[in-house]
């Protein structure tokens, strides 16, 4: 039981990391807490499904187009709507939350309900690890999470745009004095964030079914991880994913499955009480801000 918990805890943590990195990128660079994040996950899933099942696209192509569409959609939303609200935090939250709700409800209203919407897995079969069968697709999720994180690290260290991301997230005004266009960089960060959550959708959704209701759960989990880890800190997101992932898995194994959601919400509550900036967050403590 313990070994199984450890293995599935790693899978859960990797899943949370993959789901949360995009939210963290967007907030860290553009400053926008994108509450339509869960909706982007669902858009990608249904988008790929529609391309595959209604338009006859091969699945890899459908997946790629769905990810690109999600990224482009986010960039356009930021450029033509959210940019006008930049700096007005509450308005940004309300606007993105409303947009997310509208998208999810539109899918529900259009009849995308029930359990018949699925995506094909990339890898069939299971691997036998020390007495525990683990499906190959879940291990693929771990691999993708690791690869995506490495890619992000390499991107932000060795590319011009990536370094611009880091510059904006460290100090926007100084970055602007060096000629970095903050609006364009922020737009790109929204697209990147959307691309990451879309990638997560493509590899995670084949494990289950696509449902509009999934969008709400994705947002809560991403928020929990980013708040615990520290908004804007990728390292914090990774550590928080491990903490929350294993906490959820151990809760499920040794306490009860119906307590899992409370783990995420309790984590948010405790962090906000004890260390509001999160484990590795860059936001100043209240005393420093006053």
């Amino acid at each position: 039981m313990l070994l199984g918990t450890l293995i599935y805890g790693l899978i859960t943590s990797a899943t949370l990391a993959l789901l949360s990195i995009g939210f963290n990128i967007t907030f860290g660079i553009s400053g926008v807490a994108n509450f339509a994040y869960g909706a982007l996950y669902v858009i990608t899933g249904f988008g790929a499904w529609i391309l595959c099942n209604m338009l006859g696209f091969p699945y890899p192509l459908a997946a790629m187009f769905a990810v690109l569409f999600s990224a482009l959609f986010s960039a356009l939303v930021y450029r033509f709507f959210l940019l006008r609200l930049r700096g007005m935090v509450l308005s940004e939250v309300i606007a993105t939350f409303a947009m997310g709700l509208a998208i999810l409800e539109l899918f529900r209203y259009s009849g995308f309900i029930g359990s018949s919407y699925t995506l094909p897995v990339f890898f069939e079969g299971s691997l036998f690890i020390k007495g525990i069968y683990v499906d190959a697709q879940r291990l693929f999720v771990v691999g993708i999470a690791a690869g995506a994180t490495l890619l992000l690290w390499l991107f932000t260290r060795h590319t011009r745009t990536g370094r611009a991301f880091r510059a904006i997230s460290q100090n926007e005004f100084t970055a602007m004095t060096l000629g970095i266009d903050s609006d364009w960089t922020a737009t790109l960060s929204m697209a990147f964030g959307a691309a990451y959550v879309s990638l997560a959708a493509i590899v995670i959704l084949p494990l289950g079914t696509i449902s509009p209701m999934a969008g709400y759960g994705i947002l809560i989990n991403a928020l929990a991880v980013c708040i615990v880890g520290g908004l804007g800190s990728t390292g914090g997101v990774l550590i928080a994913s491990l903490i929350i992932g294993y906490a959820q898995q151990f809760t499920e194994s040794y306490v009860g499955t119906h307590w899992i959601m409370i783990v995420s919400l309790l984590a948010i509550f405790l962090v906000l009480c004890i260390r509001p900036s999160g484990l590795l967050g860059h936001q100043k403590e209240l005393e420093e801000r006053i």
Partner: protein
Amino acid sequence: MKRSIFTCLLAVSLLIILSLGQVNAAGAPKEIILGVPTSLGTLEGKQSHMAAQLAVEEINNKGGVKIGGASVPFRIEALDIRDASPGVPVPEALLGLQKIILEKKAKFIVVGPFRSEAILAGMDIIAKYKTPMLATIAASPAYGAKILKDPKYKYCFRVGADGRHMIGGMISSLFMFKQKFGFNKVYILNQDVAVMRAVANLVKKIAGGKGFKILGIERFLTGSTQFSSALMKVKASGAQIIVSIFDMPESGVMIKQAYAMKIPAVFVGMTTPMHDPSAWKTFDGKIAGVTNEMVELSNMPLSKWPKSLVFHEAFKKRWGTPVRVGKGVAPAYESVYILKAAIERADSLDPDAVVTELEKTDYVGLLGRTKFDKAHQVVYGSDPTKTALIGNYQWSKEGKRVVVSPKSMAEAEVWLPDYMK
């Protein structure tokens, strides 16, 4: 003076014309509005609405409801009260129930709220406005208990099966595997909502008292997608049968994951995603051997009950899709016909008169034989000439749902999936 007489005459004429608009020449209503307040965003709610609409169209095409010497059409007013959505409070859902009665002027309600929590709270609204309701989805036995206890709830009926029927079907499926294969070790996995908690507890109690060893129970919040730990516990316990009690789409993930984790136990119970005829394709054929209870068996075409074949063909022709759920649809269709018959016998829309006639219902139709007991609940059983039908089917290796109980409808016996041998 002439002007004032003319004005009076004009006013009286207008009043007469307006009132004629509400009733026809014989005093019968112009139409009978049936309210369908339910979670239209769920498959059960949506398809139940479609089934009721189909019945209304069939009845109207044949002339409508005969009342007061005239033929009056039905009309459906549907409202999405979202009571099935997590986070929607019951009072908010009940506002929808009230709206459909007061604003949409529904004389009768069919289908009703999705969740038991909402329907139980809504019974007071039904009693207040004396609007007979024929519920089809919500399944809490507390509904019938309230009707028995307090006569003010006499306007509430249930055509769909309730939680007690679910238990009967599940216990019978346990016995099928016990008698044929000697299986008696059971693990229960259920969704954490009122009726399923109650069903799970009763299955534990009843099965435990009939020689089955209940090795554990795990509960999952609506929307859960993590089942790995629970499945590991099932495997570690040595369970041979998993009783699965879910109505959320995510529960199909659990069965897929159990297949991947090679859990050596058969699934019985009620897992809603398995009802969909396309489930075989959805779950990549990994559901062969899953035995599922269909608490209202007529929600699937039954080769030995021709009335069900007629309905399913008409449904698919009208809506372009088969019935994809196991609860609410066939009873919704039947409710409209039952109501029609009761209104015609009462020859009135007076709620008390219609209720009296509803209580006398003895109708052989899609569900089997429909009769209400003292708690205004349709009686379900295994013989369609005596009761409405409840039963189990098992997914075959060829990807078809094959009825395995009751004996009157069975097309085959239960079999063991390859991974269990």
